[in-house]
């Protein structure tokens, strides 16, 4: 996979590993990433890279949840906020190109769901199985 999505996914896994270690988690259940079309990262390729990058780590088997955000711009001339295409960031209202991006270039690890060893039903569940 010669794309940069793998390198980015490896950076993501490193962050997740650090959080899981800090919280003494046993497993990572899900990883939620907010991503915009102008981040330069292709969601589909990130999904393909995730199992490769997470293999053998605490995030092995975790679900990658992608929150795909829209491209929106605010016009400096008329002040309107409108949806835009990644290749045409002009104001949808007045057509001016002097706009600021409101949303669309995000690439953010927004949330991690961890499974705990001590307080969860995971441990209790194992105990119950053992007693059966």
């Amino acid at each position, binding site marked *: 996979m*010669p*794309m*940069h999505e793998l*390198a*980015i996914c490896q*950076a*993501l896994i*490193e*962050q997740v590993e650090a*959080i899981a270690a800090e*919280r003494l*988690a046993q497993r990572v*259940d899900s990883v939620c*990433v907010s991503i915009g079309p*102008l*981040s*330069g*990262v292709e969601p589909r390729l990130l999904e393909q890279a995730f199992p490769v990058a997470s293999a053998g780590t605490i995030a092995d088997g975790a679900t990658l949840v992608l929150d795909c955000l829209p491209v929106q*711009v605010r016009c400096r001339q008329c002040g309107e906020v409108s949806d835009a295409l*990644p*290749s*045409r*960031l*002009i104001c949808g209202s007045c057509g001016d*190109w*002097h*706009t*600021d*991006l409101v949303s669309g*270039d995000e*690439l*953010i*690890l*927004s*949330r*991690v*769901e*961890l*499974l*705990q*060893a*001590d*307080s*969860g*039903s*995971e*441990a209790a569940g194992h105990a119950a199985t053992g007693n059966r």
Partner: protein
Amino acid sequence: MCDTCGCNVTHGNAHLLKPGGRLQKTAEGREAVSVLHGLLHENDHTAAHNREHFDRHNVLVVNLMSSPGAGKTSLLEATIEALDGDLKMAVIEGDLETENDASRIRARGVEAVQITTGSACHLDAHMVHDALHHMQLDGLDILFIENVGNLVCPASFDLGQHHNVTLLSVPEGDDKPAKYPVMFRAADLMLLSKADLLPVLDDFSPDNARRHLQELANPAPVIELSAKTGNGLDEWLGWLREARLQRRAAMTQTEAEDAATATAP
């Protein structure tokens, strides 16, 4: 302190455990942690470190990006000739393989460090950091980083540069900014390279290229340039000199502010 009876919950951290808090526990031993970190946090951290290093040495750093074969190395060769030692420069070259580009630069008497990335399609801040260990920044005016030829991946990685310069060569077509918006949105200057081919490739319209760039809400200037004939080189050198002056002015202002803070009671 334990995680069972709640004795570790204090006034200071209770808000983190409430619904929506950073350390909220959900059902079945699940813990949801809100993070809100950029995925490239680690890269960006190193990039900031690189930038501090450049600023300490008062060097303007320009990241050159384009497709493979758009003429980045030829531009640097022409720039070295035209500057004729007026500004002291060095180059970090990024390629998948070979020292060819670094050799071309060295042949003109300018220091060049080659980074070979293997299969990686871009430079990242760590690679540039490592390259800096092989360079002397003292006395340099401009450091060029010639990124791997690629209009996709290099745009995602901050290297610590002060400016991005993106080349669009005439044979590539004038709609490249619309096709690669992430790359061209990041450009502080767009160079239309191989402009000597404009009379031959008359389907390339510099006005269209400008319009596509503007439609990315990017007000960056555009220079038509031919490294072969030298047309446009003066304008390019003018941009470089101006960028360097602005850099120096920004540094002087920071130093003055630091001195004021240091002497404040």
